[in-house]
């Protein structure tokens, strides 16, 4: 099995500093360079905290403030990450307050929420920070009491000595901060955890239920103006001309102007996906006034033709041609079907698949399709910006401030240390908010308007802007010999504009003759990471296909997977297999057990099973369907997860439940189509999201109990839901479903 190495751990070092107001700060400095090192002081922290950095602040009256480095989008990092610090600090959770950190990658680490990485990448450094702080507090107490440090113990925020002496952390904090930072701290064994693995409530729970201003859309300062943007109505269009005479006459309107996001040849960063470069901006006093004035704009658009993006990716500078065609979904589907027949790029090959297929007694071949999906974060894209000649303050929902700051700096011509990015709670992310052109737009608008501005996307703006989950297709083939053994497996996947294939995932490694191929069609419709990129299609297709293969082989679908996994473990085929067969089999066994798979008592349900590995974790689901009003609904779901140590179990369950609901919704209803470059869905009346009445009544979540370092959970449970739904639908409807979303095909049956 491959273990992950977080390289920044090795380069990080611990550093404490004294607070002039008393108390103690400790930080893991992530990188040797001190980029923007002193930004914190200048920003939003009280003056008396000099030399502040890091994750832990202790006041003389024993308040413990823990800083959450990563932005919160509903995965509950604001609770789980501080829990990891508090565990080793041996803090009393009751006395802990949590604050979202400022953006400072030098002091707080990578600070991105995405890729199911938050807990995984911070697991070691945050516990080290907690352990080192605790050790320094012990040392301070030892010196004060004149006893050996080895005799000082701690309990929930209190230092203790056998002599009966005791002190709260707060009493020793300022002395502790003068001491050298210990290195190579021994961390607790999992059996000694008292906070981690014990469910803690969302630290912002009360704020959420009382409607406190937490989100970017709630952010405001005095004198702030509201801005909205009219982007081109279709991919492949640009602004020809506009007339703002009527709009400018509308009440509350300050200005109307056009802007370009990037000048020609601007070097875009890897996450600077730009759907539309042209914007007509309306700026005014209030949202409603701006919305109304925007309707009065006279706009003329024209086709843009082929254009070029200059991308600065990991591979260096690259010119990317963006085709100018005004695309429609029907034509895209035809194009994909045609490309699927052409030779494709070989991604992995084991054995001799060609010969195996030629000699097979039976070949099963199926093709699966899936549409673009919009993220549809509940909070539409928005950002606050106040840009002056000297500095820029921007605030709003974004997943990765560090990925966007260099571009913002270039666009505004301000050095990074003059830019403050505040991370607000996000009303959902799902990958969408890793692409922050809306932050750049807000900043450019503020610069031009010379005022603090909040840019707001309407739902329509948000849904039609692009950055979608790509369109995917894949054809799977399985070869069986005369004894119904699986002797070869072939997947050829393609997409607009990327293929979905993870060539080294299951069942690679479990079949002697294996071939994976991929092809890609360029487009001007922009795409982005969408909860478990590529996996969210792969799992759907592959796991439905395996269900069909198991049926052809006359074997139980869980049994087939377990047999293949046994093969992958005992005698793996090929190299670079990404998954651990034992852990993969573990979630299948757990879900089989918990769901009572093949056991009597479940006859009222049409059951489907699927499992998948992605983002370092393992997931399996059994989905139980029923009919209501002649429509199939998922009534009940059993989920089994292996993500190592579960830091905050109840909240982890919540995330799995959410992923299950999200998966069912997108499998059945999700679809974003285009006509002549324009999105055909623009709000929730024509883009169907799953609702209360369509959600399961019961979702039982089980975790494999082990002491492995934790891995992510935001994405891994999502992909296999699609496959489990497809397989349950087959049982319910008596036919296979190959094209997402499934709902239209269910309707057609009548």
């Amino acid at each position, binding site marked *: 099995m491959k273990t992950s190495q977080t390289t920044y751990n090795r380069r990080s070092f611990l550093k404490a500093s004294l607070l002039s107001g008393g108390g103690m700060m400790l930080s893991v400095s992530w990188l040797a360079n001190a980029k923007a090192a002193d930004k914190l002081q200048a920003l939003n922290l009280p003056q008396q905290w000099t030399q502040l950095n890091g994750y832990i602040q202790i006041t003389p009256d024993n308040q413990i403030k823990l800083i959450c480095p990563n932005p*919160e*989008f*509903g*995965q*509950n990092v604001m609770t789980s990450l501080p829990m990891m610090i508090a565990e080793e600090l041996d803090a009393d959770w009751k006395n802990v307050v949590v604050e979202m950190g400022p953006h400072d990658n030098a002091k707080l680490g990578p600070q991105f929420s995405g890729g199911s990485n938050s807990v995984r990448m911070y697991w070691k450094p945050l516990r080290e920070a907690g352990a080192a702080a605790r050790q320094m507090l012990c040392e301070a107490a030892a010196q004060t009491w004149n006893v050996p440090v080895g005799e000082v113990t701690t309990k929930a925020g209190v230092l203790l000595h056998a002599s009966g002496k005791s002190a709260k952390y707060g009493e020793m904090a300022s002395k502790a901060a003068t001491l050298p930072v210990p290195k190579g701290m021994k961390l607790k064994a999992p059996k000694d955890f008292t906070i981690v693995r014990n*469910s803690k*409530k*969302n630290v*912002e*729970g*009360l704020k*959420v*239920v*009382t*409607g*406190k*201003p*937490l*989100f970017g*859309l*709630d952010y*405001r300062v005095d004198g702030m103006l*509201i801005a909205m943007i009219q982007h081109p109505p279709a991919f492949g269009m640009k602004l020809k001309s506009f007339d703002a005479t009527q709009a400018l006459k509308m*009440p509350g309107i300050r200005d109307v102007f056009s802007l370009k996001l990037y000048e020609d040849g601007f070097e875009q960063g890897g996450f600077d996906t730009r759907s539309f470069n042209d914007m007509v901006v309306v700026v005014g006093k*209030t*949202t*409603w*006034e701006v919305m109304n004035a925007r309707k009065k704009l006279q706009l003329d658009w024209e086709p843009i033709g082929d254009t070029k993006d200059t991308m600065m990716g990991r591979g260096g500078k690259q010119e990317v041609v963006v085709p100018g065609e005004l695309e429609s979904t029907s034509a895209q589907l035809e194009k994909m079907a045609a490309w699927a027949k052409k030779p494709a790029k070989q991604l992995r090959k084991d054995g001799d698949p060609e010969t195996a297929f030629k000699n097979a007694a039976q070949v099963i071949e199926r093709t699966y399709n899936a549409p673009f999906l919009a993220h549809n*974060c*509940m*909070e*539409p894209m928005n950002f606050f910006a106040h840009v002056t000649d000297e500095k820029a303050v921007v605030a709003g929902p974004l997943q990765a401030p560090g990925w966007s700051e260099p571009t913002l700096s270039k666009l505004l011509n301000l050095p990074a240390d003059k830019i403050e990015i505040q991370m607000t*709670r996000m*009303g*959902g*992310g*799902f990958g969408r908010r890793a692409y922050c052109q809306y932050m750049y737009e807000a900043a450019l608008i503020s610069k031009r308007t010379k005022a603090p501005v909040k840019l707001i996307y*309407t*739902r329509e703006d948000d849904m039609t802007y692009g950055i979608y989950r790509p369109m995917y297709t894949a054809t799977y083939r399985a070869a069986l010999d005369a004894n119904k053994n699986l002797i070869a497996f072939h997947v050829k996947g393609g997409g607009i504009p990327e293929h979905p294939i993870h060539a080294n995932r299951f069942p690679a490694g479990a079949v002697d003759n294996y071939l994976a191929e991929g092809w890609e069609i360029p487009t001007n419709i922009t795409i982005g990471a969408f909860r478990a990129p590529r996996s969210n299609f792969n799992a759907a297709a592959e796991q439905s296909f395996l269900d069909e293969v198991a049926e052809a082989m006359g074997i139980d679908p869980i049994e087939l997977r377990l047999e293949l996994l046994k093969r992958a473990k005992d005698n793996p085929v090929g190299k670079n297999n990404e998954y651990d067969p034992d852990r993969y089999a573990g979630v299948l066994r757990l879900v089989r057990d918990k769901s009572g798979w093949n056991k009597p008592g479940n006859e009222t349900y049409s059951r489907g099973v699927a499992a998948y590995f992605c983002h370092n974790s393992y997931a399996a689901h059994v989905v139980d369907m029923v009919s209501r009003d002649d429509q199939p609904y998922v009534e009940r779901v059993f989920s089994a997860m292996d993500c190592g140590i579960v830091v905050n179990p109840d*909240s982890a369950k*919540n995330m799995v*439940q*959410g*992923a*299950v*609901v*999200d998966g069912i*919704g997108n499998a059945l209803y999700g679809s974003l189509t285009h006509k002549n470059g324009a999105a055909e869905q623009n*709000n*929730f*009346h024509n883009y169907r*999201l*799953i*609702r*209360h*009445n369509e*959600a*399961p*009544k019961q*979702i039982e979540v089980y975790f494999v109990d082990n002491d492995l370092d934790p891995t992510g959970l935001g994405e891994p449970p999502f992909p296999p839901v699609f496959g489990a739904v497809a397989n349950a639908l087959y049982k319910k409807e008596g036919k296979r479903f190959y094209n997402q979303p499934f709902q239209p095909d269910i309707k057609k049956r009548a």
Partner: protein
Amino acid sequence: MAKYSLKINGKSRLVDVDPSTPVLWVLRDHLDLTGTKYGCGMAQCGACTIHLDGTAVRSCQLPVSAVGNQPLTTIEGLSAKGDHPVQKAWQEHDVAQCGYCQAGQIMSAASLLKVNPNPSDADIDTYMSGNICRCGTYVRIKEAIKSVARK
């Protein structure tokens, strides 16, 4: 522009706005009550749900000119300390993920429980289906509502 005296969360608030302005934007832009959320602006998502004279309505569809003397309650005014039974149940069940939809969910649930203190699954589905949760917290919302009903 026109002046309106609105009864919001037990207080009288004066605003000077265009009569067509939806209460959603009056709350958010003029009264600094940002707990009520914008999600769709077309009565599809329920994020903007408030109480008009005790009944759940979508504030994005309610022009300020239509309010008259009817009292309005927003999430900020549902209880003094966040201790309305629905708010408490939401915390006990740790319902929220991103939390953006939850003000609307809570306002709908409070209204449902007022007219139907002991709702069935089907009642909850019918009443709550206008409130979308993109994070998929529906199972917990249902549990939380039922726990209030049981008390």
